[in-house]
């Protein structure tokens, strides 16, 4: 039973990380109608900036503002210089342009930092494990990620539902033209939304640093899963992104953890392991296909 709870915590933690990326992506996709493949690059920029500052100054905390600032600045610059020209173009142009941004970012990071991954230590007081339940030790750092992720989700909920800018964002995601017709400075709104999305991606990148390898191309590894989250949750819906992230995080973890074991009941060991690994890596994509069949607009978009 403790193993099961531990696996659920693992799924939750993975889901929360996905959410930080998916929230920005779904806003950008839903409100501006831009497919931003370079979202993963901002995640990488956040990870690098935060990690470098944290190692240079020796303080993990200074890494956080550095990661957020770098990601938001790079995001806003990206919107101003490139994305802004793409709003009226079709999705193929957007994919081409943002894909080229990925290549440019990867090469620039390689030029500055080299291909060697960076080392970042877990902050001292988060480096141990906490006894969540009797007999269940869980790494403190991963718990911290869950807490931060849930706090961000709550903050976004309040921002989107209780503030004026949130109202504009919601309006923008349902009817862009009407918002523009009402005299709202859509350009500014877009830059702000893009910057916010970038900020969250940067936070996710920095928090992933002590767990993953901070290296070139780290964004692309997680980007595809993030797109699956956005599609399953419904484009433009933060609430959808939140629930879809947690759902996919838990499903992915559960498949990896339990599918080979289940298959081993009916098959020979090594074959079951290989087949289980294969099916579990397809799991979230299968889910996406099913969701697209039943609810083409995503699980959390109200039927209109």
């Amino acid at each position: 039973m403790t193993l099961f709870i531990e696996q659920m915590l693992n799924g939750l933690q993975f889901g929360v990380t996905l959410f930080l990326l998916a929230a920005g992506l779904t806003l950008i996709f839903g409100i501006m109608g831009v497919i931003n493949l370079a979202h993963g690059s901002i995640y990488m920029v956040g990870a690098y900036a935060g990690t470098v500052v944290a190692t240079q100054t020796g303080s993990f905390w200074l890494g956080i503002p550095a990661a957020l600032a770098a990601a938001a600045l790079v995001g806003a610059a990206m919107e101003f210089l490139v994305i802004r020209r793409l709003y009226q173009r079709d999705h193929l142009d957007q994919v081409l342009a943002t894909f080229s941004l990925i290549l440019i970012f990867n090469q620039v990071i390689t030029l500055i930092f080299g291909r060697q991954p960076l080392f970042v230590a877990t902050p001292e007081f988060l480096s141990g494990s906490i006894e969540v339940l009797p007999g269940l030790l869980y790494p403190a750092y991963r718990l911290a990620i869950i807490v931060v992720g849930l706090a961000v989700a709550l903050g976004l909920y309040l921002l989107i539902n209780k503030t004026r800018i949130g109202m504009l964002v919601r309006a923008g995601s349902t009817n862009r033209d009407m918002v523009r017709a009402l005299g709202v400075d859509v350009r500014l709104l877009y830059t702000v939304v893009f910057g916010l999305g970038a900020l969250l991606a940067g936070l996710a990148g920095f928090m992933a640093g002590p767990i993953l390898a901070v290296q070139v191309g780290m964004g692309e590894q997680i980007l595809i899963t993030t797109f699956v989250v956005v599609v399953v949750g419904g484009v433009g819906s933060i609430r959808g992104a939140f629930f879809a992230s947690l759902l996919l995080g838990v499903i992915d973890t559960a498949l990896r953890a339990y599918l080979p074991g289940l298959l081993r009941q009916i098959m020979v060991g090594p074959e079951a392991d290989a087949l289980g690994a294969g099916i579990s890596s397809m799991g979230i994509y299968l889910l996406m296909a099913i969701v697209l069949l039943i609810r083409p607009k995503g699980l959390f978009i109200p039927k209109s």
Partner: protein
Amino acid sequence: MNMKIPFLAAGLSALSVMSAGAADEVKIGMITTLSGPAGYLGQDIRDGFKLAMEMNDGKLGGVPVELIVEDDGLKPGNGRQIFERMQSDEGVKLFTGIVFSNVAGATVPDIVDSGSFYISPNAAPSNLAGKGCHENYFVVSWQNDSLHESAGQYATELGYKNAFVLAPNYQAGKDAISGFKRFFKGEIAGEIYTRLDQTDYAAELAQVRAAEPDVVFQFHPGGLGITFLKQYQQAGLADSIPMVLAAPSLDGVILQAIGDSAVGLTVTAHWNSDFDNEANKEFVAAWKEAYDRPLTYYASQGYDAALAYASALKATGGNIDDADAFRESLRKADFTSVRGDFSFGPNQHPVQNWYALKVEKGEDGTPMLKTIGEVLSGHSDAYAAECQM
């Protein structure tokens, strides 16, 4: 990256056909992984190879050499396309460089079937070592399984009774697990195939903890290995369950990236930077002079691949048109490998010694790999007997 203008290249290759046999530059095509998280593997192979050229004024075996490098992006399809382009546009006949077994599996058969030569500086999947062996296919690194056979042997010698094994779900991962199991005499407590693009191992680590094995063996090269080891340590497993690794799961870069928490890990390898032979000392000194980054065994293999080509170019005087003579001289392995004793077995894969290494604190306080003993001597691979040439 040496990207040539296609028209110019086509013109040049036409010229080189006319002047075939003359002692002009021999082209060597390097298809390797330079981008993405595994980019440093290819970078080290490339720079190790280049180092051997630079130490000899751009020549190998006294013959001027032009190295053409292209990035396969860890995509098997790219590997094949690059090969076809290099062969048809630039007339390249000597190839090397592939890091990953899935790229090698798609590319190497085409290269050698076309009559060109390929020397592998890294990947050597089992399907190309036995029945699928080829007279133009040489490997200077190891056969995939051998890496992990040494780890299995060492885990047995250390007296572990049951092991939990993990590797990514691709050819080299399967080779790793079968290699380890072939030489490990204890029980297998659990076996997990991870994904090649996985970034989070929490679910697998929870299973390891629940299985309570004596020892963990895992194969995760490059960035995967950094992630795995970090998370292993954060999960508190490093203190309770020891790990025996093969060289790819703890190279110089991974060691630097995970820092002090690596101290105490045991690794088996065919080469280490502290090997006490002249060729190696020269290589290590030249690397430190040329590059400001950790030295990995990938670089040593790139270097040895260059030495292997150099030996054959020297013996044939740079004439690569006589494939039989070139092949014969390659087979002799007439070069001084940085790892000491080295020869080719019947399937043209290495016969070499395997050593146990341990991570210890170096004199300057940073963790380093220290050679502590020999595990297997004159070891070949399990597939050599199946090879008919």
